[in-house]
C-alpha cells in the first residue's frame, strides 16, 4: 500500500465520529464497538503502511519522506495545496497515537460503563484521534493549524465531559483559553512565515530558512511566535496551569489527550520546525531554558500533591519539558524517542490510576488509599513497573530515551544542562515512588474504602498489561539489532534524525551517573515514605515550612494569574464597558436617534394638510426663485 494513502488513518475515525455522534444513542451500548473498530482499523492500517514506507525510506540516499498533495484552491498566483507528509517523525507519532488510542478506547468501555452521554464520549474520542493523526501528517502549516485547533476543541469537550460539575466546566474553559493564548502566537508565526516565503508548505519554509532567504528579524519573530503555540499546547511554564486542572476530565481522556498525544503536539511542532528554529538566533537556547524551567518547577510542585492524577499531570508537564530540552539540544532523535516511551509509560500510569479510581469507587486521594496492591494485583503490578520506568531505571523504556537526552544536552550545552536535566529525573524518581507507596502499599488509610476495593474487569486490565509490555520493551528499539529485527534500517537514532543518522552505543561515562541518579531518586523516595509512613515527610515539611508552603501552593501561579486578571483584565474591561455604554451607546446610537426624532417632531408641524398652505408655499417659492435669479444676474 502506498504510504501516500496514510490520510486513510485519519479518515476512518473521522467518519466514525459522525456515525457515532448522530446514530450512537440509538445503537446498543452506544456504539462503543464502532469506536474500537475505527481506532483498531487505523492501528492495523498503520502496520500495513509501515513496510511500504520502510521500502521507500533510504537514509544513505537521503530519501527520508513520502509526500503527496492535492490542489485546494488558487487565489491569483498563489496556489494552496493540502496534503500529507510522512517521514520518520510522523511514523513515530502514528505508532504512538494509534496504539494509545486503541488501548484507551478498549479501556474506556470498562471505565465509562453506565456514565451518561456514553456514546458522545466515544464520538469525541474518534474526532480527537482523527484530528491528531491529521495534525502529525499535515504537510502545510494551515492544515496543521486546523488540526491543532480541532484537537483543542476535543480536549475542551472531553475535559468538560461531566459538565454538571462546575469545576469541570471551569477546567475546560481554563484549558481552552490558556492554550488559545499560545495559539494566537502560532497563528501570527504562521502568517509571518507566509509573508516571508509566500507558502504554507513546511518543507519549502525549511528549505528557504536554511538557504537564508528569510530575514533574521522575521525568522526570530516567527520562530518565537510559533514556539509560543507549542508552549501553550505542551503546557510549558508559564502556560502549564491548565494541564493539572484538565484532570477533571474522565481518566481515559487524561491518558490519551493530556499525557500521550495532544500535549505532545507542541513537541511535534517544534521537532517539525526545528531546522527553522535552529537558524534563528538564540532560539535553541530559549527552548532549552523553557524546557528545563518547566521540568524543575513542576517536579517540585509534584512533591506536595495528594491527588494521584495531579501528581501524574505535573510529572507529564515535567517530562514534556525534558522533551523540549532534547529539542533545544538539537536532537530530534532524543525528543521523539522520549515522546514515544513517555507516551506508553504515562498512558499506562493514567489508565492504572483510572483502574484505581474505578476499583475504589471514585477515590483518587492518596490520603484515603494505601495497601490496595493485594486487592488489585494486576493494576498494582503494572503501576509498579510504570513507576520504575518513569523514574528512569534500566532496562525499562525511559532509561534509554533519557540516556539519549543526556547525551544530546551534554554535547550541545555542556555540564550545566546535563546536571539540571538529571536533577529533574532524580525528582521524578522521588515523587513517583511516593505516589506508588502511598497508593498501593502499607496500611489502608480508610478501611471503608479498602473494604470495597476490587480488581477491575479484563477489558481494563488488558490494555494495562499491553502497555506494561511496551513500557518495558519499547526502549530497546534504540539498539541496532532490535531495530533491524523489526524491519527498520536500524535503531531509532538511525531512523529518526535531523542531519545524520548515528548508531547508538552505550556511553558508560554517562550511563552510570544516569543509573545512579535514577536509583538515588527511587531510594530516597522509598526511604522517606517506606511502609506508607508519613512521619519522615512531615518532619521534612515542618523543617522548611516556607518552602513546603510554596510548592504546596504551586508557586502561586494561579493566584498571580487571578490577580492579573482581576486588576488588569477586569479593570481594562471596566473602562471599555464604560466607553461602550456611555459614549458608543448613549451618545452615538441613542443620541443620533433622539436628534432625528426631535427634528421630526418639530418638522411634522409644517405638514398642515391644508391645500391653501401648500399653494402659498409654491407661490412664495417660485417668486423667491425668480427674485434670486434676478439678483444673481445683477
Amino acid at each position, binding site marked *: 500500500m502506498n504510504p501516500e494513502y496514510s490520510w486513510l488513518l485519519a479518515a476512518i475515525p473521522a467518519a466514525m465520529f459522525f456515525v457515532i455522534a448522530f446514530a450512537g444513542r440509538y445503537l446498543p451500548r452506544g456504539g462503543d464497538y464502532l469506536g474500537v473498530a475505527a481506532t483498531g482499523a487505523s492501528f492495523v492500517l498503520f502496520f500495513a503502511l509501515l513496510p511500504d514506507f520502510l521500502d521507500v525510506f533510504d537514509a544513505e540516499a537521503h530519501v527520508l519522506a513520502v509526500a503527496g498533495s492535492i490542489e485546494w484552491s488558487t487565489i491569483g498566483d498563489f496556489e494552496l495545496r493540502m496534503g500529507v507528509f510522512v517521514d520518520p517523525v510522523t511514523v513515530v507519532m502514528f505508532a504512538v497515537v494509534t496504539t494509545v488510542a486503541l488501548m484507551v478506547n478498549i479501556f474506556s468501555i470498562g471505565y465509562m460503563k453506565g456514565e451518561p452521554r456514553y456514546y458522545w464520549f466515544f464520538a469525541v474520542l474518534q474526532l480527537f484521534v482523527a484530528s491528531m493523526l491529521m495534525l502529525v501528517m499535515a504537510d502545510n502549516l494551515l492544515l496543521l493549524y486546523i488540526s491543532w485547533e480541532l484537537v483543542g476543541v476535543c480536549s475542551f469537550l472531553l475535559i468538560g465531559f461531566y459538565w454538571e460539575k462546575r469545576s469541570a466546566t471551569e477546567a475546560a474553559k481554563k484549558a481552552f483559553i490558556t492554550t488559545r493564548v499560545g495559539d494566537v502566537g502560532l497563528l501570527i508565526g504562521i502568517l509571518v512565515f507566509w509573508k516571508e516565503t509566500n507558502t504554507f508548505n513546511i518543507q519549502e519554509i525549511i528549505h528557504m530558512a536554511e538557504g537564508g532567504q528569510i530575514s533574521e528579524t522575521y525568522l526570530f519573530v516567527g520562530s518565537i511566535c510559533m514556539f509560543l503555540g507549542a508552549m501553550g499546547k505542551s503546557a510549558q511554564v508559564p502556560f502549564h496551569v491548565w494541564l493539572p486542572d484538565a484532570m477533571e476530565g474522565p481518566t481515559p481522556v487524561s491518558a490519551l489527550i493530556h499525557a500521550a498525544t495532544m500535549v505532545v503536539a507542541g513537541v511535534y511542532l517544534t521537532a517539525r520546525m526545528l531546522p527553522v528554529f535552529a537558524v534563528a538566533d538564540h532560539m535553541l537556547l530559549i527552548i532549552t531554558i523553557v524546557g528545563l524551567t518547566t521540568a524543575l518547577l513542576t517536579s517540585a510542585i509534584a512533591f506536595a500533591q495528594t491527588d494521584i492524577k495531579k501528581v501524574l499531570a505535573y510529572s507529564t508537564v515535567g517530562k514534556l519539558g525534558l522533551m523540549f530540552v532534547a529539542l533545544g539540544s538539537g536532537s530530534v532523535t532524543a525528543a521523539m524517542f522520549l515522546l514515544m516511551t513517555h507516551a506508553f509509560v504515562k498512558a499506562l500510569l493514567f489508565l492504572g490510576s483510572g483502574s484505581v479510581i474505578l476499583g475504589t469507587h471514585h477515590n483518587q486521594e492518596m490520603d484515603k488509599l494505601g495497601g490496595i496492591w493485594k486487592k488489585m494485583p494486576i493494576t498494582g503490578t503494572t503501576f509498579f513497573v510504570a513507576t520504575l520506568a518513569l523514574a528512569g531505571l534500566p532496562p525499562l523504556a525511559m532509561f534509554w530515551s533519557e540516556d539519549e537526552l543526556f547525551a544530546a544536552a551534554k554535547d550541545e550545552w555542556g555540564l550545566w544542562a546535563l546536571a539540571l536535566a538529571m536533577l529533574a529525573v532524580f525528582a521524578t524518581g522521588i515523587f513517583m515512588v511516593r505516589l506508588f507507596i502511598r497508593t498501593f502499599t502499607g496500611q489502608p488509610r480508610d478501611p471503608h474504602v479498602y473494604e470495597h476495593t476490587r480488581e477491575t474487569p479484563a477489558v481494563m486490565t488488558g490494555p494495562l498489561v499491553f502497555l506494561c509490555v511496551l513500557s518495558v520493551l519499547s526502549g530497546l528499539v534504540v539498539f541496532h539489532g532490535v531495530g533491524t529485527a523489526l524491519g527498520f534500517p536500524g535503531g531509532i537514532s538511525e531512523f529518526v534524525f535531523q542531519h545524520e543518522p548515528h548508531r547508538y552505543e552505550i556511553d558508560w561515562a554517562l550511563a552510570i551517573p544516569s543509573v545512579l541518579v535514577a536509583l538515588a531518586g527511587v531510594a530516597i523516595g522509598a526511604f522517606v515514605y517506606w511502609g506508607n509512613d508519613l512521619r519522615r515527610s512531615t518532619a521534612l515539611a515542618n523543617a522548611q515550612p516556607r518552602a513546603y508552603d510554596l510548592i504546596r501552593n504551586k508557586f502561586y501561579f494561579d493566584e498571580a494569574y487571578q490577580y492579573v486578571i482581576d486588576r488588569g483584565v477586569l479593570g481594562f474591561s471596566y473602562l471599555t464597558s464604560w466607553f461602550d455604554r456611555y459614549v458608543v451607546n448613549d451618545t452615538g446610537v441613542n443620541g443620533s436617534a433622539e436628534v432625528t426624532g426631535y427634528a421630526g417632531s418639530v418638522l*411634522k*408641524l409644517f*405638514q*398642515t*394638510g*391644508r*391645500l*391653501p398652505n401648500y*399653494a*402659498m408655499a409654491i*407661490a412664495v417659492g417660485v417668486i423667491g426663485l425668480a427674485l434670486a435669479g434676478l439678483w444673481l444676474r445683477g
Partner: protein
Amino acid sequence: MVPLENYLVLSAILFSLGVYGVLARRNAVLILMSVELMLNAVSLNFVAFAAYLDPDKITGAIFAIFVITVAAAEVGLALAIVIRLFRNRATSNVDEAATMKW
C-alpha cells in the same frame, strides 16, 4: 402692429389673476378655473413669442396645443377628484379636505 410688450403684459395680468384665484379661493372648482387661467396666460406667451421671434412661427403654437391637451387631461382628473370629494363630504371647500397630515 401691436408691440410684443402688450401681449406680455396681458399675459402677466392673466397669470397674476390666476395665482390670486388659486391662493384666495376655497372652492375647488374655482381653484381649477384659476389654474386654467394661469395655463392660458402661459399659452398666450408661447404664441406671442412664436409670432414675433421665431422665424418658423410654429414652435410656440405647437407648445400651446400641448398645453391645452395637458390642461384638458388635468381638468378631467381634477374634476373627478372634486366629485368624489363632494360625494364624501358634501362640500367642495378645500379647507374641509385637510386630513392628509401627521
